[in-house]
């Protein structure tokens, strides 16, 4: 299958010091220059095929949302390349980017912050349509907007209401409708269900899958909930401290997880059977700061299988079986 997106050696860093003056610190009687750089995304690569759902999963601070925002160029990448359908979009200007903006859209996490409270639902949809000339005039745009609203499960009479008149789940439907408005081919969904109640979460997940079948989208799905990821994705990457530590198909990761961090994630999930926490050992400690990255393998401080080499050398990505990659010295 053709690749819709390919990400190579992507890097993203944020400088916490805003000016040169911020960098100078007074410590122990001396002035020192201190760099405080957050290494949010450290050299990651993955491909997304057409009509595929690729998920990035990991805990907060692992850089999954930053990756998404860098791909869609809300933040300029600091290194590596992003190719959309074979075209390098890494360093193109805002105007050149416009034609790709129409093809890639984003669904956001917080349904309470992702809709402009001063805009009516219909205007939220009509604005991007007219801007990208998906519709020729206001009349046509309105017709299309009502169609889309119906597709995401809202009634036409709700179109003139303001976002605050809707519940969280309905707002997320509006957010999805806005992404659909410009008829994209690729959608980035940044934790689209994590702020929703379980019964609503299931409705939205089902909706996302139905839309995918209808419009042949490809998704980049960002999530922290492994059970949601398992339900929705074809392939996935597990992220830890800005690195993809393991990637492969759903079957690879869920039936034959190899990386100690992936295993730890699985053992930490509470289960309905009610026996997981009692049995599992879990991992100690918390994610280290991305400002001062650990030496060697980023996971070595928490890893139950740590070897001396893990402290020194960052492991290389290894293809353990076909299309199943692990970043670990054990393999």
């Amino acid at each position, binding site marked *: 299958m053709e690749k819709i997106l390919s990400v190579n050696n992507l890097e993203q860093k944020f400088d916490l010091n805003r000016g040169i003056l911020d960098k100078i610190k007074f410590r122990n009687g001396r002035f020192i220059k201190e760099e405080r750089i957050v290494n949010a995304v450290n050299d990651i690569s993955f491909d997304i095929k057409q009509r595929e759902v690729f998920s990035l999963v990991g805990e907060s601070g692992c850089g999954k949302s930053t990756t998404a925002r860098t791909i869609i160029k809300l933040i300029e990448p600091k290194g590596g390349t992003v190719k959309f359908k074979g075209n390098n979009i890494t360093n193109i200007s805002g105007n050149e980017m416009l034609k790709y903006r129409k093809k*890639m859209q984003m669904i956001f996490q917080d349904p309470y*912050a992702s809709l*402009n409270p001063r805009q009516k639902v219909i205007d939220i949809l009509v604005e991007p349509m007219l801007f990208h000339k998906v519709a020729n005039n206001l*009349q046509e745009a*309105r*017709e299309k907007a009502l169609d889309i609203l119906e597709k995401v499960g809202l009634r036409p009479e709700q179109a003139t209401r303001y976002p605050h008149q809707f519940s969280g789940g309905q707002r997320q439907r509006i957010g999805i409708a806005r992404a659909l408005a410009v008829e994209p081919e690729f959608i980035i969904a940044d934790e689209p269900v994590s702020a929703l109640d379980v019964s609503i979460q299931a409705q939205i997940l089902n909706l996302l899958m139905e839309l995918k079948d209808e419009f042949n989208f490809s998704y980049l799905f960002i999530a922290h909930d492994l059970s949601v990821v398992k339900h929705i994705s074809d392939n996935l990457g597990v992220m830890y401290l800005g690195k993809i530590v393991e990637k492969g198909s759903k079957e690879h990761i869920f039936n034959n997880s190899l990386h100690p961090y992936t295993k730890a994630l699985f053992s930490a999930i509470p289960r309905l059977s009610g026996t997981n926490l009692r049995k599992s050992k879990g991992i100690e400690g918390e994610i280290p700061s991305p400002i001062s990255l650990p030496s060697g393998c980023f996971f070595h401080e928490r890893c139950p299988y740590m070897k001396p080499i893990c402290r020194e050398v960052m492991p290389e990505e290894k293809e353990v079986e076909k299309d199943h990659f692990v970043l670990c010295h054990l393999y």
Partner: protein
Amino acid sequence: MQVQVKTSNALKGSAENSKLKTFLSSEFIYNYKRSPTAIIGSIITIVVLLTALIGPFFTVQNPYDMSTIDLSDAYKPPAWIEGGDSNFILGTDQQGRDILSAIVYGSRISLIIGVAGTLFASIIGITLGLVSGYFGGRVDALIMRMADIQLSFPTMLIALFLMTFFGRGIGNILIALCLVGWVRYARTVRGETLTVKKKEYIEATRVIGLPNFKIISKHVLPNVFTSIIVLSTIQVGSFILTEATLSFLGLGVPVTRPSLGMLCNNGFKVLYSGLWWVSIFPGLYIMLIVFGINLLGDFLRDELNPKLK
């Protein structure tokens, strides 16, 4: 086609009908009805505005028109004091001008300067604040350092300096008020813009690719507007005071167009010769106006500022 027109009409009609209704049944109105300060504040403000608007039709003189003024009416005390004239309820000044008429006409000038000054200052301040907050970086640093420098001087000092420089006149006062007033707007709007900018709905407009100008005017500005309204109410009051002070010091409006501050100044010269009413009544009226506006402003701040909720 028929169907299309119908849907669009339905969309329009229902929106207009419901807007007033939802506003009247909103929490804002509910709280308003239960807030004595808000009601007193708005009653005072409305009375003051009405007086300025239609008051001149009912006054006994036009204090600007020398032909209606009779010098023989001078030095009349208020009507309830012995020697008072029922025509001049609040007495007259040393030229025979009716104090009440002077207050009514003077409040017009004061209010116009307060409102217009706020309007102009807000336009400058909002624009700079939006630019500063949205773009950040060097533009932001430049604008905010300018604001910092200005804030390190007392407002009144700058206003006094500007007025000595420009000379008297309503236009000059407005310019001076703009130059001292934009800072508060710029800082408030910048702060709000920084918060709004981080919201996902702004990210969504950038994902769509909207140009910055559109994002700022259509998506950021409407969402910082409530704090602008709150600030403006309070600003009108403070500008009326600034103008009154300037005029009192003889640096404000021209003598031919006396504002309330000017009237105080007038009476101040004769205050110790027993003509207290010439100065005190305009002074009290300034107090009343500012008090009413501030009461309203307090209520609006509590209601509209989401940070206090």
